[in-house]
């Protein structure tokens, strides 16, 4: 369970949000809503541990995240705005290398199977720079299939996806929740997920 209490975030002179508290139990998902520039991405970056809040604390299963960064990161899967894909490498190389650096040895067959599930068969050996925005997004989302994690933090996961892929992603999130995981996402699109918690900034 992720619990957040009295979180305050400041960017430059402007206070984006203050005294934000919420809890995210198992098998639940949380939507972070807010206008452009309200601080959704800043909140996600703080929750993932990339940046430090001005005040407040975040605990994961009772342990403050700051004290056990590596333990928390083993349970966390964060997908940010940026792709973290290398344009020169193929989708297959991107997946195996990035997961490898997270300590997960992924067999090539498993990685290409995940790519197939996201409808990228035939593109495994093509450098990422030849892929469209939606296809790149799909390569990224393959990490959801390959890397076990209890908490997913997804920043605008539906961006650039077509209806088919968006439906597949919704199914993935639902399976993840059924398996006892939890998820935090921001999205501007209306989602077909079963209702979850919501924080509005």
């Amino acid at each position, binding site marked *: 369970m992720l619990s957040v209490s009295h979180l305050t975030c400041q960017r430059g002179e402007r206070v984006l949000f203050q005294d934000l508290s919420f809890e995210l139990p198992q098998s639940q998902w949380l939507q972070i809503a807010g206008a452009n520039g309200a601080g959704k991405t800043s909140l996600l970056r703080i929750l*993932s*541990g*990339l*940046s*430090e809040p001005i005040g407040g604390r975040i605990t994961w299963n009772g342990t403050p995240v700051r004290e056990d960064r*590596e*333990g928390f*990161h*083993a349970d*966390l899967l*964060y997908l*940010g*705005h*940026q*792709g*973290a*894909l*290398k*344009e*020169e*490498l193929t989708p297959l*190389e991107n997946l195996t*290398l*990035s997961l*490898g*650096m*997270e*300590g997960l*040895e992924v067999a090539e067959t498993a990685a290409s199977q995940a790519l197939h599930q996201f409808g990228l068969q035939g593109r495994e050996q093509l450098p990422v720079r030849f892929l469209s925005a939606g296809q790149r997004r799909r390569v990224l989302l393959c990490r959801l299939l390959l890397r076990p994690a209890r908490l997913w933090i997804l920043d605008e996961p539906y961006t650039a996806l077509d209806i088919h892929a968006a439906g597949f992603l919704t199914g993935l999130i639902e399976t993840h929740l059924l398996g006892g995981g939890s998820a935090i996402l921001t999205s501007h699109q209306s989602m077909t997920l079963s209702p979850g918690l919501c924080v509005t900034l």
Partner: protein
Amino acid sequence: MNRLLSPFRLSVQRDLLLAARHKTEIITALFFFVIVVNLLPLGIGPDPDLLRKIAPGALWIGALLATLLGLQRLFASDHADGTLEQMALSPQSFTLLVAGKIMAHWLVAGLPVVLVAPVLGMQFDLSGRSLFILTLSLLLGTPILSLIGAVGAALTLGVRGGGALLSLLILPLYIPALIFGAGAVEADLAGIGPDGHLSLLAALLVVSAFFAPWVATVALRVALE
């Protein structure tokens, strides 16, 4: 041990694979080194005594400048596409991943310089023994250049005009390596023997290998905030 080193190995492997797809970068740094070192005898004139004297310094300065060329890109592209974020969020040690990137930088930028140095040293009329000592000093010294340079690259990450700032920040820190590295050959010619200089260079390497990845990691965490 194997588990501990696997992020390091994969990080090296990944950067080498990326470098292999961008062969021009390796070739540019190496040719830059060759050309800079070649310009000196052409500009100074064919006086063997003088050339022998300036050879170690010339080669070392060429190596410094060649290292600087690729340094700015060490973290910049990973920062731009979000890879650095994912590395910081990895359950593996971020420091080891950064150390792997530094190692890869040396393999791509430093090692080729060490390998061509004896060939270039010949046109300065260096003896076989001097060539050997010079190459040895570069072998010990170029990793120091990559390690210290990585700290500078991490500190100037995301700064506008970071390239010029990086050179200003890093070149003064290269002075000790330059003095002991180039000095080793001169000390040998003077009859003192190169051991003292090479030992100091090795000590510098050990100290920077221990601290630089760690300091670079702290700087990168700040840059990611």
